[in-house]
């Protein structure tokens, strides 16, 4: 008999997934700076070192480059490491190992090795996190064959994706978002998997397809409500997995709506949004569709709340951009700026 679902936060779902994979498979271990401290990476690793011992859950020196190589080597030798980074920005210190070794080893060594590892990292938007604590850099990893990239937007997907990622035989970049940690969803107690390469239609609609990435799914859903007020029915799609990417589901929706807007939690240039728009256009061939994108402004992320507000897409900018694409030539429309408040701003407080 299946166990009951409960309402869990995103961070609790990640913690539970980790406990379950570690209980099921002794080759799984988890490491990274401060995974064993009193904060436990926003609660996601809390209690794990006590439960599994410091041989399987341990903090590391500030040596991201070497620690990534350690993860790769242990994976080649049959272990299944989960390497955790409190900010995605720190992955820049891991790039040589991730791009030159992890992504390529299976291919470059003629299929004689596998690198089953998960790299968890958190995008740290808001509260003045600024230039080097807030970046969504998932697009960099989508560029390189051999890596898988996941960006679950809710607690249910977070648990299922993490289990799937740990059991996968490839290096997986697991993109989390700090502002999602407190969001809640129904999460089954039992072990389950959310498959890679399967997008979710979060909300059905007829006039426009809106693809939201990571926590932008939350903002797109709020834009969806604003758009309802002006008679625009939007279909919201969450790709969940960015590589592999489920273009079929997105293209099928765009075929129906004729309009595509991709809202990314990252820059648009050479980004996930560019990739999705280009690929959908190619897939739909001669069919006339309208496309556009929204993402970070093409600047570095500022810290002042006034400037930060301009930097990120929000429900109002998403709705306005959608409106002007779906109803070109209509008089300008500006929803109430109060609706532009991002979802977290009602609940999130500092210091960190």
């Amino acid at each position, binding site marked *: 008999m299946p166990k009951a679902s409960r309402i869990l936060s995103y961070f609790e779902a990640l913690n539970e997934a980790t406990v379950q994979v570690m209980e099921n498979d002794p080759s799984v*271990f988890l490491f990274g700076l401060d995974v064993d401290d009193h904060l436990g990476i926003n609660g996601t690793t809390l209690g794990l070192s006590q439960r599994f011992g410091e*041989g*399987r859950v341990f903090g*590391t*020196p500030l*040596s991201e*480059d*070497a*620690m*990534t*190589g*350690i*993860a*790769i*080597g*242990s*994976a*080649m*030798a*049959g*272990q299944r490491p989960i390497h955790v980074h409190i900010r995605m920005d720190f992955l820049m210190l891991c790039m*040589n*190992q991730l791009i*030159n*070794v992890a992504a390529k*080893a*299976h*291919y*470059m*060594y*003629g*299929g*004689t*090795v*596998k*690198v*089953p590892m998960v790299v968890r990292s958190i995008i740290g938007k808001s509260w003045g996190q600024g230039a080097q604590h807030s970046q969504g850099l998932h697009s960099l990893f989508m560029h390189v*064959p*051999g890596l*898988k990239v996941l960006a679950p937007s809710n607690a249910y997907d977070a648990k299922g994706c993490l289990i799937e990622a740990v059991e996968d*035989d*490839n290096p997986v970049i697991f993109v989390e978002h700090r502002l999602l940690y407190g969001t809640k969803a129904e999460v089954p107690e039992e072990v389950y998997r959310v498959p890679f390469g399967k997008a979710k239609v979060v909300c059905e609609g007829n006039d426009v397809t809106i693809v939201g990435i990571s926590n932008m799914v939350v903002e797109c859903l709020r834009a969806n409500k604003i758009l309802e007020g002006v008679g625009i029915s939007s279909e919201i799609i969450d790709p969940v997995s960015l590589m592999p990417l489920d273009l079929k589901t997105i293209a099928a929706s765009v075929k129906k709506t004729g309009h595509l807007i991709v809202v990314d939690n990252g820059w648009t240039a050479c980004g996930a949004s560019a990739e999705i728009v280009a690929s959908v256009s190619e897939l739909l061939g001669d069919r006339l569709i309208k496309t556009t994108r929204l993402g970070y402004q093409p600047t570095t992320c500022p810290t002042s709340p006034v400037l930060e507000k301009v930097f990120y897409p929000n429900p109002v900018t998403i709705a306005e951009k959608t409106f002007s694409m779906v109803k070109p030539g209509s008089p300008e429309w500006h929803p109430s700026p109060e609706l532009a408040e991002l979802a977290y701003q009602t609940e999130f407080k500092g210091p960190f």
Partner: protein
Amino acid sequence: MEETSLAARLYRSQKLIRRAEEEIARIYPTDKIKSPVHLSIGQEAAAAGVCEALQPEDIVSITYRGHAGYIAKGAPLKKMFAELFGKSLGCAAGKGGSMHLVSMQDGVLGASAVVGTTIPVAAGVALALKQRQEKRVVVCFLGDGATEEGVFCETINFAVLKRLPILFVCENNGFAIHSPLSKRWSTLDLLSRVKTFGLSCHDVPDGNPFVVYQEAAKAVMDIRRGGVPGFLNVAVYRWKQHVGPGEDFHVGYRDQAEYKRWVKRDPIELVGKTLSEKTRNVIDNEVEEKIAAAIKFAEDAPWPNQLETFSQVYA
């Protein structure tokens, strides 16, 4: 039986490396090998001496100048030549080439063309062995240039911190491509630097293969008994150019007199002269047969199917 003595084993291993690479240099101008080759001719003592101290189940991590380590650990020569020829029966199925030799079943981790990247990967393998309480040891070959990469210090710190079963072996040939140590190191005392991390240090300043073996054997024994990770510095000299089959004394970045001094203490002759001529002949013939068979294997091996381009991107 002299042919199974330590000297004979060191002679056989070094000779196989030397002659295989001389054949690579001979074949190279025909363009049958379309992969940049970094030869270890002159440096054989490091790989041969260290691998002689290992068990078959132990693991080595090699560098892009890795033919020597691959051969010394006992990985199949046929598959190495097939890999250089870009054939489907190569050790990396024609997808790796000379700089990415690998043979997991023989305990040879894949090599990397990006200097130093294999160092933490080797330590990761050692961590896995420790977690599973296996008694095997990892040897991580690296060059003097790799000690300048940040990841080297990061890794040796972690290796000692976690007491990983690993021996780092520096094949110190004194040059990073064409740059000598004097242009790269604030102090030439590498071992003092390394010692501060708590590694057990060993030095073979003249590259004598017997001494390399002895020092490696001591270090490996100690590590197997649960001692701290080791670091073995082996002075060697690269006779050929950094990459390619030729010599490079005419370009002027190094002194030919130094080369001549090293040739005088050729590690193969040094071992060979302790053996009888008869034993040397037996081994030499064995080596030649093995190489001829490997080259024929590579010549005859089929090309990969072009569809293989798309396989193995993901496991």
